[in-house]
């Protein structure tokens, strides 16, 4: 019993590490691709659209197996952890890019015009005026993505990454117990999702206090 628990706790460490790494990659990619999607340069835009459509269209599961089993034949040998971070990060980055794009688009035209009248450069407009307001809008959908990403980490067990799900299977094989290991990891997953969700809610409240909600876009 204690041995089983320690196996599962080890799995928790792996799951948390995988979640944090892939979330970081996904966030970086989201901003890069989301802002690239709004670029004036049509080559940048087309590249980003191709990336988003490809990763949203081909199923995370397939991407993970491709990264782990096919890339080595092309000379890129990845550990299960690296393959999982790559697949999860790029897959969720594609969804996150749409969140970034949508939030930036939700900022009214009046804000952009105010920036032009104050002679801010395009980069300064984003950095000081648009993104600080867009972040408040992004938080809830990013929170949902983070929870979904956490749940998706379970599939890394299928490429033998010793995460929570993998360890629960291990316990099942070693002890013949089925309900207990799965019940325990489900409670752990649920606790972590709840933790992420409340973290996002707190951040949202912090950001909204003091900062006013963005003014609705007005029609010209």
């Amino acid at each position, binding site marked *: 019993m204690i041995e089983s628990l320690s196996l599962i706790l080890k799995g928790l460490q792996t799951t948390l590490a995988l979640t944090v790494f892939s979330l970081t990659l996904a966030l970086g990619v989201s901003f890069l691709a989301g802002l690239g999607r709004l670029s004036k340069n049509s080559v940048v835009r087309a590249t980003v659209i191709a990336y988003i*459509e490809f990763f949203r*269209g081909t199923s995370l*599961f397939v991407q993970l*197996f491709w990264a782990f089993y096919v890339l080595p034949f092309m000379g890129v040998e990845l550990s299960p952890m690296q393959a999982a971070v790559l697949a999860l990060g790029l897959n969720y980055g594609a969804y996150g890019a749409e969140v970034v794009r949508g939030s930036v688009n939700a900022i009214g035209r009046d804000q952009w015009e105010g920036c032009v009248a104050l002679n801010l450069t395009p980069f300064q407009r984003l950095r000081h005026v648009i993104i600080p307001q867009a972040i408040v809008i992004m938080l809830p959908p990013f929170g949902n993505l983070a929870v979904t990403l956490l749940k998706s980490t379970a599939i890394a067990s299928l490429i033998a990454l010793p995460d929570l*799900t993998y360890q629960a299977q291990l316990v099942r094989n070693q002890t013949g117990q089925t309900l207990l290991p*799965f019940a325990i990891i489900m409670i752990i997953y*649920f606790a972590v999702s709840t933790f992420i969700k409340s973290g996002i809610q707190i951040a949202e409240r912090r950001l909204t206090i003091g900062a006013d909600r963005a003014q609705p876009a007005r029609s010209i």
Partner: protein
Amino acid sequence: MEWNWTFAFAILPHLLEGAKTTILATFLGFLIAIVLGLAMALGRRSQQPWIARAVGLCADFIRGTPLLVQLYVLFFVLPNMGVVLSPLVAGVIGLGLHNATYIAEVYRAGIESISRGQWEASKACNLGISQTWRHIIIPQAIPPMIPALANYLIAMFKETPLLSAITVYEIMGEALGAASRTYRYLEPVTMVGVFFLIISLVCAYFARVIEERVRIHQ
């Protein structure tokens, strides 16, 4: 590793066989999800607070845990309790149950988007509760839900490869089977990816068309 067309053609019939199962599982799962989702949405609106709370907690729990683990529970744990499900049945139930919790939210948002004025006007017109639902609320709530429901259908389609983990021979199961027999992963996994990409792009196109229609309709 070079792409081997002979091998690719050799496994194609297996993959197509698997694709049938993938599509079947998607639609059966979706059917379960829209029915269960409705039950959950109504349960959450129940007059009995304990029913509403229990349904809400269950839905939160299902939404907060991985589908893969839920599939394992259905497939490995239930037999110990005397309930033996075939892989496909377990997979379809898992897929449907998991997504029902999301679809319940779609229903909830759709119902809540109808303004209070509509309920009050129905009362003023002396409509009963069921008449209000049937003639006023549901006809207005459904069209805006359609794009969201279509998105969940596509999302579920992309989740079906998970069913291979409980030995459902859908397209990914077939591909991994072929790969482990021959130690060639390049062709089967890539072909499955292409299959998903094509169907997703086509679906995304139709989803946009539907969305446009709905918008014009309003």
